[in-house]
């Protein structure tokens, strides 16, 4: 339906993942840090501890520069990367939820204008007025979280939306409630690491240094414990069966779980250490904690994205951007069914008919059939897989690529067009794959391109025949 952007060196999906993980770190930080700062500011006002303002001022500047602005930029970055990587997926979200996003935008404006007002009015306005600004920041941040979770969770569990087509059903979907509380709790360990980073940059003589470290660590530990409990007793049980199966397949590499669990363990240990020995905290430890959290978030967000494979919107649209189920409530019919009859080429925008594919001498492809096959493979597989050398990092005898089809086929000894075609035909039997769409001829062309691709990556196999 749209041109495919595969990515350059790095797969398009990885651009999304990197930007998203950063955005999650920054945006989650803004919410919980706002609550933590509100807690401290209340103590500053009501217990008459003005020295706390020094920490609050530093924290606010860091949040303004790092979390709010970079978080906002990364938020726009998610739009740009998802648009380039999977435009129809994001289109489904926008056409369902544009007004929810509009509502989130107000909350976000409150956040950004709020942090500017909060930071620049330190010492200028009455403490009670400033405390109100802290309240607004905390509430505004929580508002953004509340709204975005509905949109995010919709992708995995659209729930009743698949029957009613009503956006409210999609928004308040089965994983919305557990996820909102889970994320809210998880924000506090991030904020604890942030607080450590800020306070360890202040002089050792700062009188509130140790109390802030202990408070932050305790809050982080509490948040982590609550988040784990929500995951085990609420979030995991409401996950669709399909997602639970995916969690146990090779679709999620074991290293991901190692990173997540290692990150949780390291965060727990780090916060415990901070709580027990506040005087021994240093900036480097806090930076390390933030790095560990980034890695864990990266793993967790990747896992969340993979759980709904092979769909981009579970039960509605597959990762190759085709609607595969009817949605009678919105008068939408499955596209896959029609395309299996007419064929993909020439039936969708940006998929030229075979006769329009004329192989120039400098194309680098051996023959026209392989060029046709490449077009189809890119259309149907590139959203999740590396399907060419363009999105591989090659060096030091290593080739780094996202779920490379060349490697997967090679591992399964499907290295000739015939074997590959059999494999393609059977692919719908995998739990995390949809059946390939298209006519017999198109499947053959795809198989020939994939044989050529396997040959490129693993040249030990017999050379591909250049004319067929």
């Amino acid at each position, binding site marked *: 339906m749209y041109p495919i952007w595969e990515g350059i060196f790095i797969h398009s999906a990885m651009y999304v993942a990197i930007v998203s993980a950063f955005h999650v770190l920054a945006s989650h930080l803004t919410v919980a840090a706002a609550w933590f700062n509100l807690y401290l500011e209340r103590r500053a006002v009501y217990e008459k501890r003005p020295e706390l303002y020094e920490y609050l001022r530093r924290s606010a500047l860091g949040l303004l520069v790092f979390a709010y602005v970079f978080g906002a930029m990364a938020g726009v970055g998610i*739009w740009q990367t998802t648009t380039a990587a999977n435009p129809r997926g994001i289109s489904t979200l926008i056409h369902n939820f544009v*007004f929810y996003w509009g509502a989130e935008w107000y909350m976000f404006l409150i956040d950004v204008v709020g942090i500017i007002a909060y930071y620049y009015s330190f010492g200028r*306005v009455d403490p009670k007025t400033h405390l109100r600004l802290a309240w607004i920041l905390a509430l505004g941040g929580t508002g953004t979280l509340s709204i975005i979770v509905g949109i995010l969770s919709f992708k995995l569990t659209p729930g009743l939306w698949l029957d009613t087509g009503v956006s409210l059903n999609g928004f308040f979907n089965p994983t919305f409630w557990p996820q909102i509380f889970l994320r809210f709790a998880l924000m506090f360990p991030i904020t604890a690491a942030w607080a450590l980073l800020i306070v360890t940059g202040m002089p050792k003589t700062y009188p509130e240094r140790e109390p802030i470290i202990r408070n932050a660590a305790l809050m982080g530990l509490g948040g982590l414990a609550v988040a784990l409990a929500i995951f085990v007793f609420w979030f995991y049980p409401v996950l669709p069966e399909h997602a639970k199966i995916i969690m146990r397949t090779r679709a999620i590499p074991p290293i991901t779980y190692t990173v997540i669990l290692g990150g949780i363990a390291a965060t727990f240990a780090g916060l415990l250490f901070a709580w027990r020995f506040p005087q021994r905290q240093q900036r480097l430890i806090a930076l390390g904690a933030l790095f560990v959290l980034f890695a864990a978030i990266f793993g967790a967000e990747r896992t969340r994205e993979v759980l709904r494979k092979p769909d981009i919107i579970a039960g509605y649209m597959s990762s190759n951007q085709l609607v595969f189920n009817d949605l009678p409530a919105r008068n939408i019919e499955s596209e896959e069914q029609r395309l299996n009859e007419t064929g993909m080429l020439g039936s969708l925008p940006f998929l030229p008919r075979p006769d*329009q594919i004329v*192989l120039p001498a400098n194309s680098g492809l051996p023959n026209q059939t392989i060029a046709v096959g490449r077009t189809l493979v890119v259309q149907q597989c590139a959203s999740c897989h590396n399907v060419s050398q363009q999105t591989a990092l090659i060096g030091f005898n290593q080739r780094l690529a996202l779920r490379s089809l060349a490697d997967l086929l090679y591992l399964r000894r499907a290295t000739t067009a015939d074997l590959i075609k059999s494999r393609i035909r059977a692919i719908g039997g995998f739990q995390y794959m949809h059946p390939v769409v298209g006519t017999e001829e198109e499947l053959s062309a795809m198989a020939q391109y994939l044989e050529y691709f396997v040959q490129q990556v693993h040249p030990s196999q017999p050379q591909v025949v250049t004319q067929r």
Partner: protein
Amino acid sequence: MNVGEMLKMMRDPLGAPFYPPALQVLLVVTWVLHIFFVTLALGSSLYAIWGFLRPTNYRLRLARVAARLTPNAVGLGIVTGIAPLLFVQTIYDPIWYASNTLTGFWSVSFIFVVMGGYSLAYLFYLKGSPDGKLLWSAVASFILLFFAGWIMHVLAAVSIRPERWMEWYAPNGIIDTRGVIFHAWNIPRLVFLLPLQAGLSLAVTLTLFGWYFRRNEEDAPFMQWVASLGRKLGLVISPLYALTGLLWATTEGVEFGIGWQVGITLVGVGVALTGYFFWLRQPIRYAPRTLLAWIGTLVIVGMVREAIRAVSLARFGYSVATYPYAFDWGSIIVFTVTTIVGVAVLAYLIMVMYQSGGVKHDAQISPRVERLGTIATGMLGAWFGFFLLVGLYATFFLR
């Protein structure tokens, strides 16, 4: 498949959740807010560089203010850019998504470029601007921010030329999935929308700056100088604005068959601005009116952009007026309620900044603003009650 069929097929099958022309209006209005901050960031960035390169007492002082303004304006430019991004995707999804995927690498790079520009601007503000060090960071920041503008310009230019998409994506039918080529641009449009508007946004902001600090008597000569510099800038740039508008009309306007209309409008706007700045003898006193005039101008420019887009797509039978839609009441209610709450809270925040910005300590926030703050904060708290109720209703009753 012809271009018209292609565009029709590319529209999202879900349709829009509201009357599409209303979304088009929101698109223009929010774009105006966005482009003001974006061009202000570019303008202040350029002034900061110039002020440090050709220093006098006043220029240096203003350059430091500009260095501080740049990252804040970038931040606000990004935040205000989200709204038009939402609306363009809703009613112009085929062209926006096609241009972003055709230019995928640059579309994705955009945000890294902006982050780089913002970071360098902040570096210059924090570490360089007090004593004029690290000027390279200000220059590099300006280049990156301008380059980000160039990327957005290319995305817009690609989006309104759907007849060429296949030629760009699949020459001879062989698809190019790299997205590294800048396929289309229009230099007069770029110059009109970015550098010239950057100068004008800066000019208007300088008069506002003088107006805001007008009560500080010891600073009066400086503020007078700043405001008249704003007027001079406006006076010099406005004729160029008219001329470049004419060039835009004779290139892109003519290409889409509305050269006359675009030309008359943009030249008219440029001449009117020239006249306005010429007769603006008291720039401090009339600064709010100058801002209104500039916002009005940006609205007209936004409408011209929209007209070019509409005319380009009308060639293939695509029209916002015929975009399918179905009212989605749930989301409309959530948006409306949040708008009311959001506007109240934002009004309070802006009033606090306004009343506390002119002094270093102990600003007096008026009782009326404090009352607004109490109400707005209460409304924000009540919003969660509303959200919870809607959620419970949708979860347990809506079938």
